[in-house]
């Protein structure tokens, strides 16, 4: 069924809406009589509220209520976990601490809500919030992971991270060895759109929610649990999202609180947090320290790798991610051990941030590979090729598809790798040092369960429906392309509806899984419609009676015989003749058991050229090439945009992004967009994206694997490796700021 031809690049189907202001984000929705709320955050990181004076706030103009731990309305499901995770049941708190918003005077992290002020306008709520005064009994806050690495504990559950293949210490006896420590600071998603929610109780037990969520079904489920009402009575809408990057992968406690307060005051209630609250209330990439031990023989064959990671989490919840996973299966190495620990600090809980743990782990692994290549006097690509594996050494099974060798080759050609000198510090342009670096990325290619509905109308138009939200990668565009490929309906006659719980259930947008999951359901529904049309045409009395399905072709609303183009019937005529106004199919789709026989991953290779000023330590990325090996590319234009976005994010991760805490106070000192540096245009050069674009024969009928994560995973390592090639100096602590480079060079 899949055409083995590449898809044409088409414009983003919602592009016009987005650039003309026609796309409505959660905060754009207006409901009459809406009240507004503002969160007052704790100014300490650990302790208790000694006193809380809300009188002035309550008396301020327009104020409808000030909610604190003393008067917060009860939430029926308060004792049950308020989670709604992306891919599984809500996490049960495993720690001694429990965090329930506005439930006690105890402070567990900086910025923890101590009051929610409600008023008739946002401005009045903001002013009243400034009048809430708290005093605290402060305790010493533990916020610095570096000081508490030794307190790491093995998390329970599947992400335990302990893994062993062969011998754990085989690297020690290898002829060439490396031991290196790598650090990734706290990074904050910082999407342009601020977090929040608009909650409207439309009846005593019916709820309408406009949210900034990556999954409307997950939000619906979380609210159903919190308020003990049936999910069907909760309507969640999140069609557009102004960037998520992971911060919308769960329902945050303040969202639940807003819903509870809306019920109490009997008015729709809107929350939009401020920028500094984006640093404390919606998660972050956890500060992580890693050690890699590696050993190889003189020919550059890996003998052993040991990868240990320790990451921060909150005192009240264990957050884990797959930081060490890539090391288990990336290279043909007989002895591999990994170890993953978390340290409970007095910090707000982290959440996945694009690439998530794999991006953290890839920085360490791919830096280490570069360091080893240098020790072995090997080209870094050659070193990787000598340890290339066609089968997954972790699970001893084949990859569903892997074209990484081709990716190395095409990326190398595009960046001009042949100009790279293996001896670091040997290329100059004027006063500037020039370097080239590369790195590999990989991420699971998932096939989650999803459903979609497709309606073909007699007028030839097609509607595709799924609850999935489009956080920006171009989901709507990809689904349009998939439907077009099956039914050949002209692109401008296809409408996609998404981001709403009234539509067929879909997973949360995350983990690079949506084209595979929802796309498969759309594919199946479209295929079912096509079969229905063929049956109508070929049944007794039909215009193409007696013909077999494989003799027929469908294009532009005409069903015809492949070899006899004059034998045809218009779909509209066929439907009218059968009194059908619409053919309506809903399909649930998930992978079959045969998928278990394969390891399914997407791969990427990143190449960069950097310029380094030897006096000031300034690093500029001057060229970037990213290659994606992620199966058949469904929508080449939006896929390229995802890769470009990954590079921009990767440059930020490599060179500029770091949320800094003053550990004396346990508070951030750069929680704004002027001081927390995401890459700006001037930091981002022209980017070349290359798609291998070969269908994966296993994963799904489109042959498509995800690519949102691999766009970022590995990129920071490529930059660090290029800086080394330019200067001979290795920076193992991100971000690579001018001071770090300059100090090594002077």
């Amino acid at each position, binding site marked *: 069924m899949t055409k083995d031809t590449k898809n044409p690049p088409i414009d983003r189907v919602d592009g016009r809406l987005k650039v003309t202001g026609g796309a409505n984000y959660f905060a754009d929705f207006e409901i009459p009589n809406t009240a507004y709320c503002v969160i007052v955050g704790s100014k300490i990181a650990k302790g208790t509220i000694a006193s809380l004076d809300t009188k002035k706030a309550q008396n301020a103009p327009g104020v409808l209520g000030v909610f604190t731990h003393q008067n917060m309305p009860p939430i029926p499901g308060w004792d049950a976990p308020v989670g709604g995770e992306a891919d599984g049941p809500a996490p049960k708190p495993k720690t001694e601490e429990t965090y329930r918003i506005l439930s006690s005077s105890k402070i567990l992290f900086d910025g923890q809500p101590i009051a929610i002020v409600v008023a008739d306008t946002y401005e009045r709520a*903001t002013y009243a919030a400034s*009048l809430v005064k708290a005093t605290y009994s402060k305790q010493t806050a533990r916020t610095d992971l570096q000081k508490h690495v030794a307190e790491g504990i093995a998390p329970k559950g599947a992400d335990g991270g302990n893994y062993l293949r062969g011998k754990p210490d085989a690297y020690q006896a290898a002829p060439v060895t490396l031991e290196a420590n790598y650090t990734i600071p706290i990074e904050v998603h910082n999407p342009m759109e601020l977090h929040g929610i608009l909650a409207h109780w439309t009846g005593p037990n019916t709820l309408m929610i406009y949210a900034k969520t990556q999954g409307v079904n997950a939000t619906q489920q979380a609210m159903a649990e919190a308020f003990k009402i049936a999910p069907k009575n909760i309507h969640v809408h999140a069609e557009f999202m102004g960037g998520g990057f992971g911060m919308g992968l769960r329902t945050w406690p303040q969202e639940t609180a807003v819903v509870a307060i809306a019920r109490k005051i009997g008015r729709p209630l809107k929350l939009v947090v401020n920028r500094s609250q984006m640093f404390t209330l919606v998660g972050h990439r956890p500060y992580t320290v890693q050690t890699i031990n590696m050993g190889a023989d003189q020919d550059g064959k890996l003998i052993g790798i040991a990868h240990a990671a320790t990451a921060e989490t909150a005192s009240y919840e264990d957050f884990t991610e797959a930081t060490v996973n890539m090391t288990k299966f990336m290279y043909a190495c007989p002895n591999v051990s990994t170890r993953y620990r978390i340290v409970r600090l007095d910090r707000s809980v982290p959440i996945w941030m694009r690439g998530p743990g794999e991006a953290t782990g890839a920085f360490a692994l791919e830096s280490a590979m570069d360091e080893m290549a240098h020790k072995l006097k090997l080209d870094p690509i050659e070193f990787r090729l000598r340890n290339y594996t066609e089968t997954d050494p972790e699970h001893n099974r084949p990859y569903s598809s892997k074209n990484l060798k081709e990716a190395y080759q095409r990326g190398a050609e595009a960046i001009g790798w042949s100009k790279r000198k293996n001896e670091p510090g040997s290329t100059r342009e004027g006063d500037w040092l020039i370097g080239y670096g590369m790195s590999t990325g990989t991420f699971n290619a998932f096939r989650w369960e999803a459903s979609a509905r497709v309606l073909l109308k007699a007028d030839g138009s097609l509607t595709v429906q799924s609850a999935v939200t489009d956080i920006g990668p171009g989901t709507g565009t990809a689904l349009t392309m998939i439907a077009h490929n099956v039914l050949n309906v002209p692109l401008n006659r296809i409408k996609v509806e998404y981001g709403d719980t009234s539509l067929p259930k879909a997973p949360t947008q995350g983990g690079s899984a949506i084209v595979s999951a929802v796309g498969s359901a759309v594919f199946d529904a479209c295929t079912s419609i096509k079969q229905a049309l063929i049956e109508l045409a070929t049944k007794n009395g039909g215009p193409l009676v007696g013909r077999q399905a494989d003799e027929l072709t469908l294009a532009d609303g005409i069903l015809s015989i492949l070899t006899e183009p004059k034998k045809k019937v218009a779909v509209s005529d066929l439907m009218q003749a059968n009194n059908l106004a619409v053919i309506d199919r809903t399909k649930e789709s998930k992978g079959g058991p045969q998928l278990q026989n394969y390891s399914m991953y997407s791969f990427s290779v990143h190449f960069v050229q950097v310029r380094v000023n030897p006096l000031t330590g300034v690093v500029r990325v001057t060229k970037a090439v990213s290659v994606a090996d992620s199966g058949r590319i469904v929508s080449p234009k939006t896929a390229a945009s995802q890769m470009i976005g990954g590079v921009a994010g990767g440059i930020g991760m490599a060179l500029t992004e770091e949320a800094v805490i*003053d550990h004396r106070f346990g508070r951030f*000192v750069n929680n704004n967009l002027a*001081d927390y540096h995401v890459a*700006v*245009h001037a*930091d981002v050069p022209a980017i070349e994206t290359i798609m291998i674009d070969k269908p994966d024969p296993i994963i799904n009928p489109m042959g498509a694997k995800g690519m949102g994560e691999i766009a970022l995973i590995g990129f920071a390592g490529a930059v660090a490796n290029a800086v080394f090639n330019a200067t001979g100096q290795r920076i193992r602590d991100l971000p690579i700021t*001018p001071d770090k480079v300059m100090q090594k060079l002077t």
Partner: protein
Amino acid sequence: MNPFQFTRVTTPKAAISAVTKEKGTYFLAGGTNLIDLMKREVVIPERLVDINKLPLATIEKTVTGLRIGATAKNSAVADNELVKKYFPLLSQALNAGASAQLRNMATVGGNMMQRTRCAYFYDNSMPCNKRSPVQTGGAAGSTERFRADKGQANGPTGCGAIGGFNRMHAIFGASEKCIAVHPSDMCIALVALDATVNVSGPKGDRKIPFGEFHRLPGDKPQQDNTLQPGELIMSVDLPTNRFSDNSHYLKVRDRASYAFALVSVGVALDMKGNTIRDVRLAMGGVAHKPWRLTKAEDFLRGKPATEANFKQAAALAMQGAKGYGENDFKLTLAPNSIIDALKTATKTA
């Protein structure tokens, strides 16, 4: 943000009288810094006097050089043909500052009046002597601490940056009360180019040499400058010079745009062949005021433009420098940047 009164004036006299009359009154120009300070409750004005309608936005030639009006927008000055031709250092410095959007709003006078970006100054739960001075100062540029509805709103005294996050902080002229830096790029060019500030106030008009406009923190870090209460910046005068062929503004920062300087260097030279006939050097990101490097200038004057001479000049410039921990790297980055900027400006790179 807090409720405040807003008045718009059309004459400097009315503006001066409005801020002199009642306490807690502030001039509002582009607002790119003041509005942030109000949102963070670092400054809580009772009244704002909008001076954007004052006829002070002109850029014109004078007998001695160029006069730039106080409300001329940063982008207008940076793009002005006279500025680009005769004072390229100023144009470069302006374009190195902030973002395009901010430069379109920010004014020359406002740029001079902007407050430090020290994190402790902006977070009123953290100690800061500049935000919360031990005694309240009445001078313009200082912070009002009290308001009827707020009580003592401005948080604890002390210096959070000493012993804290001081990566961005001063290595010259700091005091035990304050190690903040002045964040402006424009002012580095203006101090290098020997500008003069024309101010008008309740007691009449006066001229302030640019190097005396900003001050070191000493015991009064709440006072950024030497303006007297009620004084309004009218314009800035630039004397003609022979530096236009050999000027360079180097800004070393964490990202390529929209970031404050770790260190910046403004260089302007008058070259005869390879000989430095005259030179102006100033640095940003290193002190509570735009930092002029007169010792280095004196050393370089009359000498050939060689890397060895640049190194010596940089070493002289660094006399008296002191790090506070996280900013120790500036003790190396600053002289390196001086050398780099001199190389670029003399085209010896």
